[in-house]
């Protein structure tokens, strides 16, 4: 019997979670794991069968095929993650009516038109999207608050219809909805490929404590906007993102209530990012274990709701679960190895610069002396900036110290921009990395829940089959 290479992680119940580099996984008791590594012929035939099926051991006569299966799985996974399939982000303006506590990209006050995109560059941007991508193109409008320059948003959309074809692209506007008006609604109603992505951080007190709007009540405007979009445009046209701040930690029920009251059945919950401006403005808000406690409570509430017959999907959990159950899933740019920088995102900034990710433009504002761009709309230089070659080379977690022995490595990714932002270099010390701590905990939590809790298994399987 040949023992094949694998990594392992101890679970809370004492069992061990085993994975190999192709992403096959199984669990073993501690006793069985010790027998397996010691090769002392004490394993039951049932356990041996399980290990053979996952390519953790092989008989002499099936050794070549077992090694072939692992190699082929890993090659397919790496090829998939190297595929160039970008989401195209456009920043029409940095102007914003909010001054949020944890704003990740900085913002400019209203009236400062020097922070707007030159409208003459829009045709060139869409030409570049057509050259670089393939249908269905995904275009995401970021800010600032993009609706401050709704005229530019409309023009980008109209140019995309002309050059890409009306049915060949999705168009997502990331907005607080504070400036949603009749004009925007009529435009969105006439264009069914337009969707909105809205931050919703909790109930009124929590949301407004993060999202400062001097001209009004940010929460009320977001809620009103979501209701109007649902009523006017129908379901599925608005999605939410919840950034967990300290004020939400003790009330996970509130964020669920807000969603269900709005008849929203999808949520995306994430911890606060340690990036650039967010980390400068917000002191260390909470620890990794505070977030874990919050998330476990949220999860119990989700189980109760979903098992009661009401569907409410938490998409960050779904993405992590999908990575475990389908190691070839590589659609989520923040959880990829090599990193999704450039491969999964091209961002056209208001100042004409192009970046390989939203995080890279944040880094540019934090570290202005280093050029993180890939040139400008006028003069793109994808291959000239060696920084990107270096960052991509250094973003294969398979060979990172700390990741090479981690059982969750096949499912996890890397975030070189976060490492540069926090630790000053792209690989980072994983023992001090917020990215590592968060994703490792999520994977471990979901593995334990999925493999040992029938309610969770049914819930995740249901989400996956939707």
């Amino acid at each position, binding site marked *: 019997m040949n023992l094949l290479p694998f990594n392992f992680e101890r679970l809370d119940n004492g069992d061990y979670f085993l994975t190999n580099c192709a992403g096959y996984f199984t669990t073993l008791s501690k006793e069985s794991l010790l027998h397996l590594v010691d090769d002392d012929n004490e394993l039951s035939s049932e356990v041996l069968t399980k290990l053979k099926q996952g390519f953790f051991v092989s008989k002499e006569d099936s050794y070549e095929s077992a090694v072939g299966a692992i*190699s082929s799985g890993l090659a397919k996974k790496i090829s998939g993650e190297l595929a160039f399939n970008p989401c195209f982000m456009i920043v029409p303006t940095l102007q914003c009516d909010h001054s949020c506590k944890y704003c990740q990209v900085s913002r400019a006050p209203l009236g400062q038109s020097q922070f707007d995109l030159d409208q003459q560059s829009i045709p060139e941007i869409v030409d570049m999207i057509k050259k670089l991508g393939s249908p269905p193109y995904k275009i995401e409008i970021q800010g600032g608050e993009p609706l401050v320059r709704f005229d530019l948003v409309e023009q980008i959309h109209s140019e995309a219809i002309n050059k890409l074809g009306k049915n060949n692209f999705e168009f997502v506007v990331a907005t607080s909805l504070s400036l949603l008006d009749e004009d925007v609604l009529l435009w969105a109603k006439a264009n069914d490929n337009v969707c909105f992505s809205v931050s919703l951080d909790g109930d009124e007190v929590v949301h407004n404590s993060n999202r400062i709007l001097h001209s009004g009540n940010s929460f009320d405007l977001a809620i009103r906007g979501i209701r109007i979009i649902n009523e006017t445009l129908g379901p599925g046209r608005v999605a939410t993102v919840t950034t967990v701040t300290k004020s939400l930690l003790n009330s996970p029920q509130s964020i669920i209530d807000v969603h269900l009251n709005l008849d929203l059945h999808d949520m995306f919950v994430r911890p606060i990012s340690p990036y650039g401006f967010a980390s400068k403005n917000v002191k260390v808000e909470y620890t990794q274990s505070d977030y874990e406690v919050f998330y476990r409570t949220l999860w119990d509430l989700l189980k109760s709701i979903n098992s009661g017959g009401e569907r409410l999907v938490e998409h960050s959990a779904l993405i992590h679960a999908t990575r475990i159950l389908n190691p070839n899933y590589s659609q989520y740019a923040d959880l990829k190895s090599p990193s999704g920088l450039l491969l999964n995102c091209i961002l056209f900034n208001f100042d004409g610069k192009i970046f390989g990710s939203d995080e890279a433009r944040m880094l540019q504002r934090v570290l202005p002396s280093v050029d993180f761009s890939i040139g400008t709309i006028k003069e793109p230089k994808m291959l000239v900036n060696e920084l990107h070659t270096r960052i991509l080379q250094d973003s294969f977690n398979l060979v990172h110290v700390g990741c090479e022995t981690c059982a969750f490595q096949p499912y996890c990714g890397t975030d070189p921009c976060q490492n540069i932002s926090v630790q000053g270099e792209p690989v980072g010390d994983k023992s001090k990395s917020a990215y590592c701590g968060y994703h490792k905990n999520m994977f471990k939590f979901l593995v334990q829940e999925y493999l040992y809790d029938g309610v969770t298994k049914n819930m995740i399987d249901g989400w996956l089959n939707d």
Partner: protein
Amino acid sequence: MKEYHLLKSSYTEWVVRNSLYWISSMSAWSLEDDETRWTVHFKVYSEDVAQEFSRLLNDYCLREKLNNKTVVHRDAIAKNVLSSIHNRLKK
């Protein structure tokens, strides 16, 4: 500051350094050695650090044993993967 001694005959440098890597988030440390033993100086030493360090040492000993037994297969997989990706990129 707490001194912690490990016998070189029981723990290799790979095991000790990998274990200490993950302790960095709990305590600053430094490592010295002589002919027969490793000496770790922990800046902060608590029951939690002791338990975690002990667990890490055990896990990395097991990983080291596993690595030694599978190194040939790792090489075979790496060669197959590189060859497969090379062929895909050539197409």
